[in-house]
């Protein structure tokens, strides 16, 4: 690479904007609230994406996971609470994870590679993703999520299963990412 290119581009920019007035940023929109997000709204919005949603008391999460997974073998990333789900023997055909933050208004789950979330690839390659969201991780809106997240971590925002609208703009669930997304919301 030539250092020249860098200098040329920066010089072009400076001469292009020379004399242009400074532009002030106006933020009149709803910012972060710092409040808890609405569990029901979150559940409804996730369901809108054709994901499967369960809302259960915290104490019943383990039982729910056992019931959902049945005989299924799931990959369990490091740091996933062992009292919720214990990996069984065999070839996994899905993955179970926790999350970092969830957004009620948009039905979004955010993973930040923290404990129980694995690497980005771990929640991507399998065809089935089961995610456990604690109600205190749900925030009302996007600004709240941005305020809570650490940009230096690799982040994946997930809103429903993989989808495409490339054929006649019809949404079809399931292309390269997990075709099934199942979410267990732990309340109380």
């Amino acid at each position, binding site marked *: 690479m030539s250092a020249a290119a860098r200098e*040329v581009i920066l010089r072009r920019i400076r001469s292009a904007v020379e004399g242009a007035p400074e532009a002030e940023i106006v933020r009149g929109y709803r910012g972060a609230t710092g409040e808890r997000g609405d569990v029901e709204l979150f559940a409804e919005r996730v369901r809108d994406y054709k994901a499967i949603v369960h809302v259960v008391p915290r104490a019943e999460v383990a039982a729910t996971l056992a019931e959902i997974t049945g005989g299924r073998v799931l990959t369990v990333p490091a740091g996933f609470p062992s009292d919720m789900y214990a990996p069984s023997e065999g070839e996994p055909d899905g993955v179970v994870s926790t999350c970092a933050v969830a957004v009620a208004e948009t039905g979004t789950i955010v993973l930040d590679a923290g404990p129980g979330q694995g690497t980005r690839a771990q929640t991507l390659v399998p065809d089935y993703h089961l995610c456990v969201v604690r109600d205190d991780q749900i925030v009302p809106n996007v600004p709240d999520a941005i305020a809570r997240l650490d940009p230096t971590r690799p982040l994946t925002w997930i809103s429903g299963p993989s989808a495409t*609208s*490339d054929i006649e703009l019809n949404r079809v669930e399931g292309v390269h990412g997990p075709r099934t997304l199942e979410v267990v919301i732990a309340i109380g």
Partner: protein
Amino acid sequence: MSGVFVGMPAFPKNAAKAVQNSQLRFNLRKATHTIRGKRAAVVGELDDWAELRQAGKTIKDHTLRNLDRYLVQLEEKVTEAGGTVHWARDAAEANRIVTRLVKDTGETEVVKVKSMATQEIGLNEALAEEGIEAFETDLAELIVQLGDDFPSHILVPAIHRNRAEIRELFLKKMAGAPKDLTDEPRVLAEAARVYLRKRFLESKVAISGANFMIAETGTLVVLESEGNGRMCLTLPKTLISVVGIEKLLPTWQDLEVFLQLLPRSSTGERMNPYTSMWTGATEGQEFHLVLLDNGRTSVLADKVGRQALRCIRCSACLNVCPVYERAGGHAYGSVYPGPIGAILTPQLRGMDTELDRSLPYASSLCGACYEVCPVAIDIPSVLVDLRAKARHSRAEKAGMAAAGWVFNRSKRLAKAQRFGGRMRRLVPKRLPGPLSGWTDTRDLPEIPAESFRDWWIREGKR
């Protein structure tokens, strides 16, 4: 910009063909009307949409005004996080950089996430010349690539194809496509999944663009739907991102605005299925960022036209544009079709060809694009400004000068009207020359015997 469109005729000629293509018209009508409705519904859900739009506009304007400073900051942060930053003045330089980076890995195949910037510079063609094969992994891009076709929409590049056409294409061109393939979108998507899966797992190098870059943190952001983006961004050992210098945002907080504006404007969803954010070299990857100018700084120098650089490529303007809906994307002869293409292409490429000169006129100035644009780009005003800069034909110049001369004195106008009134029986049903464009499909109105002003003088006044 990429040479694939060189020598194309002017927009009206291309459009004349397109409007007679019933299949294309049907596909476009259906697709654009569907997405219009979806967008309107999710935008209507947010009562602070106007404020978000205002913030989006002012954040972008502020960034562009201080672009040098923020680019340097971005470079510093990406480098600190283990990435390598490259600068490319033009398409050729960007292609050289990427080609060399791929060659350094010893690989001859790369996977690609849909990226407007790499289409703009013709990267796939440049790589092919050096013996490197690029595989598009976005479903629509794959459809375009398999069909040796051109993209016709920013977001849905194969919007001009319907399910039956896609099925035929897959059967013909996609190795290993099942013989019993139906034209159901779900089945077609499944076929693409199977076809691409091996590539994802085996490829060592990926090339992407980015929707946003954050100066404050060095973070890059890619929004997508299918998961092919996540595959490309996370699985290969080396990631090369080619990004236009205008894709910058100053702070992490700014994303809270654009993550609301973009998905709702583009796919008409509250949020797109997947958004990936990474800072520098992540999870053991090697990361290169190629910052692309390629004409952007000259757009930046234009007081009126520079607002086009606010564009976040949501394609809302295409979806509401009555001209795009009928002419289709190919008529614009550029990777940037529709209203945004009509103002961006002539600015990036100049107005030296007949095609590029015709683009600012590819609009009825109805203003639908401006109304939906999430960063409030006043496309009609930029179009009008570009029209003033375009070269005009001699006949038109003479006509406009004559009209100007008449309008410059009310007495001349009155005289012309009286003359017209006397000649009114002699006006032919079909007009000659360029004006035949009017009478081809429309009757002329009857010319009144008396103008309004003559009536006023005679008896209107009291």
